[in-house]
């Protein structure tokens, strides 16, 4: 997904000489093509993320359209003060591209996982937060990012996801995409890792004769309130899915809208239960341990269904 994002960006990079790409020692392989086009606008700042963010700020203040890339905890958590003051407060034209949302970096361990980035980034004024749900969304986002006015945070999930969208999509930041319009149950997922899990869950429910609605909520901020209000009208169960702490992420954001809108149905956040990963393993293994694999999600929905019908 990152590969196609950078390939798409390369087309624009060739035409638009104001685009600069900064990265901090990691992801070198993604930038070979850009370097071939213009090595002066592709800068490896070394292992120095705080400096990267503010060099980007200085470039953006000089009229450049700047992208910064790294693994999320180093890009975001490490350089947060620079992001807060110089990018967000000054409302600069900078795109932060973060790799490894959730536990995508599996065996590399907790230092490389990211379970709190959505919460941090959506609480920054002026910041837009997007987690593309599949390859089509990543391509559309790469194009949209070029002319995007202001700070943008892109959270990449897993790279090798199937295309969820079979048709052409109408991608706009701030507007969720309804993958399937059904009834009663509504699954709202963000990012490629969770959207692909969500589609497995939805397929299984469909085989049982249910017709769940599935939404790719790629933009977590600004959140598509209109769509959520619409969904609230004809769904008795709304479930959010994210590979992020349940505190402060997609589920929190959607719940704020639902509660303020007076939603009377059942609502559940499915995400990482306020914990760092306590296990060692590859992403699939960790997702299972965190209860975020499609089977466990399905079981949780069944449990929710029981609660709805019998206990509430």
């Amino acid at each position, binding site marked *: 997904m990152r590969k196609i994002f950078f390939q798409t960006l390369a087309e624009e990079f060739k035409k638009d000489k104001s685009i600069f790409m900064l990265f901090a020692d990691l992801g070198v392989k993604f930038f070979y093509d850009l370097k071939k086009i213009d090595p*002066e*606008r592709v*800068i490896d*700042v*070394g292992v*120095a993320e*705080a*400096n990267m*963010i*503010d*060099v*980007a*700020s*200085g*470039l*953006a*203040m*000089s*009229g*450049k359209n700047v992208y910064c890339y790294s693994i999320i905890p180093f890009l975001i958590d490490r350089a947060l*003060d*620079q992001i807060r*003051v*110089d990018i967000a*407060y*000054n409302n600069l034209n900078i795109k932060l591209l973060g790799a490894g949302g959730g536990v995508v970096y599996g065996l590399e361990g907790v230092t490389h996982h990211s379970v709190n980035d959505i919460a941090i980034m959506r609480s920054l004024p002026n910041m837009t937060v997007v987690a593309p749900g599949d390859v089509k969304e990543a391509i559309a986002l790469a194009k949209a990012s070029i002319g995007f006015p202001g700070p943008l945070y892109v959270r990449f999930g897993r790279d090798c996801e199937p295309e969820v969208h079979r048709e052409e999509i109408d991608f706009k930041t701030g507007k969720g995409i309804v993958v399937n319009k059904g009834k009663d149950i509504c699954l709202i997922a963000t990012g490629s890792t969770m959207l692909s899990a969500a589609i497995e869950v939805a397929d299984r429910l469909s085989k049982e004769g249910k017709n769940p609605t599935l939404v790719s909520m790629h933009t977590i901020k600004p959140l598509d309130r209109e769509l959520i209000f619409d969904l609230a009208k004809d769904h008795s169960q709304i479930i959010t899915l994210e590979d992020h702490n349940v505190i402060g992420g997609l589920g929190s954001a959607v719940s704020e809208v639902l509660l303020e809108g007076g939603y009377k149905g059942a609502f559940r956040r499915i995400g990482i239960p306020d914990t760092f990963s306590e296990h060692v393993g590859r992403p699939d293994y960790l997702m299972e341990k965190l209860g975020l694999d499609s089977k466990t999600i399905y079981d949780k929905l069944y449990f929710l269904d029981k609660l709805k019908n019998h206990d509430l």
Partner: protein
Amino acid sequence: MPLATKEEIQILEKTAQELRRDTLDLIYKTKSPHIGCSLSMIELLTALYFRILRINSESPRDENRDRFLLSKGHGVPALYPFLAKKGFIKKEIFDGYAQDGGTLEQHPTRNIDLGIEITSGSLGHGLSIGSGMALAGKHDKKDYRVFVYLGDGELQEGSNWEAAMFASHHKLDNLVAIIDHNKLQAMQRIEEVLDLNPLADKWRAFGWETKEVNGHDLNEIVSVMNKIPFKKGKPSCVIAHTVKGKGISFMENEPRWHDRCPDENEYQQALNELKGLC
């Protein structure tokens, strides 16, 4: 820029004393902190704003202007009077400093039209931002220079040294770091908290062409800054030895004046000391 004549230096010294008094007035009237660290800046700002910087308040967004970045944001009570004197900040905005509903805070927010290039107050940002601006200047083949004004205590922030490496690696000879070396950080002596010495050697080791000056001697400051860049292909560093609280005897080298505001008696005494000099 030709060397300054003796008469020109005398005029600059007079200007410096006027702006020292303006800084004192601004802080006293608004009961604001940071007088000590503002007073150490006066001669350096005088040299920059009246001799070195190629800027014009008529065209604050001129792409070819020199950039002045105040990285030690707490020193802004010294900067605002200079920006007012140079026509960037109009009287009504200046008078709203540190007032409810005003424009100017006790740490600056980026406002190009007012001559404020960056937001600062969180330390250790300016040199990296300046590096980005200098890099853009090189890339666009523009001849503007970027001057970043740093506090010495601020150099304890590690991000400065990331930027120092970056700037020399990229041969940013359009970038100048000015270190206001008054030897005091917020409330204590730097050498007692976290020593910076040998400071000039550190900058040289990081690839910066470095010169030391008396930061209150305008003749020395102007003649050194006239030589920027000190060496082609290298960023320049000016370590200016200064005195915190400079010009008001009872404030000089006294840590408590970092954030203390003079009371009426102290203000009068300070005014009397400055009077003979303006």
